[in-house]
């Protein structure tokens, strides 16, 4: 399979990701720069897990939302949407490739965390899957936001408004032991499962809210539902805005 010249939208994104070497270097280094100091420090496990989680959430949301609005402003994405390709398929490709590329960016830092904090394999796999589900969810949020604005600056604003309550509900920093309706809401946020798995990796397996089975199943289902939902917005998202 060759990426360049691209014969599909996702290959275009992959080609651009790998073609600019300096930008690629920065993209690969910045998650390490944020996560590795935390992983080698002796800060409490729940906060170390929270930092890794925040990096994943931000990378996913801003990555898709900002690049999408830039392409929409440029008009190139609308032009692509006037080919016989289904707009839902284009949105799916945008979502999938952005989630995978974000994951590739985070993977070296995650591997270092696993080396520095040896944990049972099942939790390592659960944390890895939890991060990926979070990236899919975050990219869904970014794409959803792009439906309502064509300004990359607005994406930052709207994303913050959406992410702040989700991060609170997930118990990254506060609300770590929710009860009642807060606990129920937490079950519907994929970030929470990632947070539980990362806490287990950082040595809080006993305090993790979820068991590995739940981390493998529930965030996957929720992310798939969200992905289906944002793909349905394709025709609106890719139509010209006057």
């Amino acid at each position, binding site marked *: 399979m060759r990426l360049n*010249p691209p*014969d599909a939208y996702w290959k*275009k994104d992959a080609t*651009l990701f790998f073609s600019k070497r300096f930008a690629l270097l920065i993209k690969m280094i910045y998650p390490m720069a944020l996560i590795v100091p935390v992983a080698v420090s002796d800060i409490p496990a729940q906060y170390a897990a929270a930092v890794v989680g925040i990096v994943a959430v931000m990378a996913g949301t801003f990555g898709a939302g900002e690049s999408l609005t830039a392409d929409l402003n440029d008009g190139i994405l609308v032009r692509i949407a006037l080919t016989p390709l289904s707009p839902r398929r284009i949105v799916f490709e945008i979502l999938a490739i952005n989630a995978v590329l974000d994951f590739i960016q985070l993977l070296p830092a995650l591997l270092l965390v696993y080396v520095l904090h040896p944990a049972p394999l099942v939790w390592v796999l659960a944390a890895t899957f939890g991060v990926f589900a979070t990236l899919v969810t975050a990219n869904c949020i970014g794409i959803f936001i792009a439906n309502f604005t064509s300004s990359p600056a607005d994406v930052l604003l709207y994303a913050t408004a959406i992410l702040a309550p989700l991060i609170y509900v997930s118990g990254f920093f506060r609300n770590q032991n929710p009860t009642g309706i807060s606990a129920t809401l937490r079950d519907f946020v994929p970030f929470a499962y990632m947070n539980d798995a990362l806490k287990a990796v950082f040595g809080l397996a006993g305090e993790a809210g979820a068991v590995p089975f739940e981390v493998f199943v529930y965030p996957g289902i929720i992310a798939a539902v969200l992905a289906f939902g944002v793909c349905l917005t394709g025709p609106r998202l890719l139509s*010209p805005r006057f």
Partner: protein
Amino acid sequence: MADTRKTSPALEVRNVARRYKSSGRGVEGLSLTVEPGEVFGLMGPNGSGKSTLLRVLSTAIAPESGTFRIGGVDGLKERRKARAKMGLMVDRPTHYGDLTGRANAYLFARSYGMEEGKAEGVLEELFDYFGLAEYGDDRAKTYSYGMGKKLALIEAMAHGPELLLLDEPSLGLDYTSQLAYQKKIRELAAAGVAVLVASNQVDEVEAMCDRVAFLHRGRLIALGTPESFVSSLEGTRRIVATLRNPVEYGALEGVPGVERVATEGRDLVVHCAQRPGIVADVVAGLIDAGGDITDLAVRRPSLEDVYVKLTGEALRDYEA
């Protein structure tokens, strides 16, 4: 079952209306038909509805009312099938700047369903034809405006569409490229491709189009062959005077036979009846008004004059 490709027009537009709420501009009750192998020109000043019509026909926006069919396919109900039948060049083409020109074109060709080998072969031929072969591996962001337009033309043509929709295709092209583009359009038309081209390049439309429609404030006001339009102005002339200094030309309108006087950039254009001595009278009027004439031409009427006669307005905006 009948073969719709052989019996249907390449493009059939019926009573299409679309107005932008913000500006009130758009198109109203517009109908036209383009046959396979026909090159059809759309002319009208900025805001007359040309680009709006092309946006509707490209399926980018839906009309408020009316229908259109592309090669027999309903452009509203079967949009993806309709898109597959057309090649599109928008008025301000954009590309992925960090991809090469060839990669951009290849992405479009494959998006239209072309096979890998065929896409590569056709693109090589088109890049060569339009003089972009040596720049094909340069990033698109290094392209000049004209090169970007040629790349957009290649993207529109490569997949062998039944209908080409082109918005101001030759604007920004150098003279040689304009000739190459016009030749290619005539070749495609000879092969059965229908072409709808929105352009105010009078020479280009007269040379290339089989029929032309004039749009004025969103409505189609006249439709016919360029020859019939121009010959309808038989007996009129267009005197173009280039002046070193601006003059008050109101008095010229009193010269017998003068129908309209307007400025086009540094030129003063006088539309007048063809009668003995009228050029001398116009020149005398200009000199009397204090004009310093640096160039003077008497031209036969063009489609631009047809539009002026039909609407009383100029076809193009000229900088003062």
